[in-house]
């Protein structure tokens, strides 16, 4: 599988800092191209939100560069990946928590990471950043670890009510806030010409599924530049609608081998 990939990150209309961090890595291997996308939304005062999200993406990137090749060539498969990620995120969480304790501050970050490996994707998720899978339908792959999502599941809140609820930013799970963390894992088949998006809440707050589907048509995207233009367009739409938070998105479009036109390299 070849991949078209791009990203866009904007500070938003009100914030003085951008606390979103992201990573995008791709390796040519004996098993074809493998791509890792990581999206993190930091929180905390005095520049610590930026630090928390940076730490999460850099640790995941380091894992891809240094630890993943051993998993890949050990032939142990996805079970080892899940186990490795669980321990990695637990370690990262604990270091963030200890840093916060040492400096008497609270810092944290969401994390949504997806590895596109062979014919499958593997996603690990903490918080309310999201992964979407867009083809004929807009599928939200991840489920938010948020209070409003919990109340929707309980039947106490409709999705429409949740969109405008003042408690919509309350997270039930987050990296670094306590000394332990729970995470969700998702896997799925990689479908060529599908658009996979990883984004922070500043991006998804203002998006409408119909518009995302209309703009993100994977079969019409043949280069990183074309994907970049679409992502910038979506971010501009969020800005026009008054989004105050930082706005970040990564896009990945799998293509059958040798179909991509250029490289973001």
């Amino acid at each position, binding site marked *: 599988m070849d991949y078209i*990939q791009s990203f866009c990150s904007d500070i938003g209309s009100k914030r003085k800092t951008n606390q979103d961090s992201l990573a*995008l890595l791709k390796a040519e291997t004996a098993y074809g191209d493998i791509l890792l996308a990581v999206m993190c939304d930091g929180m905390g005062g005095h520049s610590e939100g930026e630090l928390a999200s*940076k730490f999460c993406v850099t640790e995941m990137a380091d894992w891809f560069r240094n630890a993943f090749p051993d998993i890949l060539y050990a032939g142990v498969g996805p079970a080892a990946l899940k186990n490795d990620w669980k321990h990695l995120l637990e370690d990262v969480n604990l270091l963030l928590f200890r840093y916060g304790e040492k400096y008497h501050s609270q810092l944290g970050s969401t994390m949504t990471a997806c590895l596109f490996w062979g014919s499958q994707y593997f996603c690990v998720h903490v918080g309310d950043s999201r992964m979407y899978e867009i083809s004929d339908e807009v599928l939200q792959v991840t489920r938010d670890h948020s209070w409003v999502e919990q109340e929707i599941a309980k039947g106490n809140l409709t999705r429409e009510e949740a969109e405008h609820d003042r408690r919509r930013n309350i997270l039930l799970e987050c990296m670094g806030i306590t000394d332990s963390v729970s995470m969700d894992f998702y896997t799925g088949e990689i479908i060529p010409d599908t658009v996979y998006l990883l984004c922070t809440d500043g991006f998804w707050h203002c998006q409408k599924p119909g518009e995302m589907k209309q703009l993100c048509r994977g079969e019409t995207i043949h280069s990183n530049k074309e994907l970049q233009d679409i992502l910038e367009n979506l971010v501009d739409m969020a800005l026009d609608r008054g989004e105050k938070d930082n706005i970040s998105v990564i896009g990945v479009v799998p293509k059958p081998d040798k179909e991509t036109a250029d490289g973001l390299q």
Partner: protein
Amino acid sequence: MDYNKELDREEKVDPEETPDGEEITEEICQGDRKFDLVLDILCVHSDKDLRAGL
């Protein structure tokens, strides 16, 4: 890219000099463990190092 440096060193090992005398072919060293980073983007907004502050 350190991982690739390790591989480069491994590829130069003479099969006849391996400790257990096992014949390691070039295909195993080179082909099977190929891992070339062709994209490595970090978009971050902090110049602090969290590990250094621990």
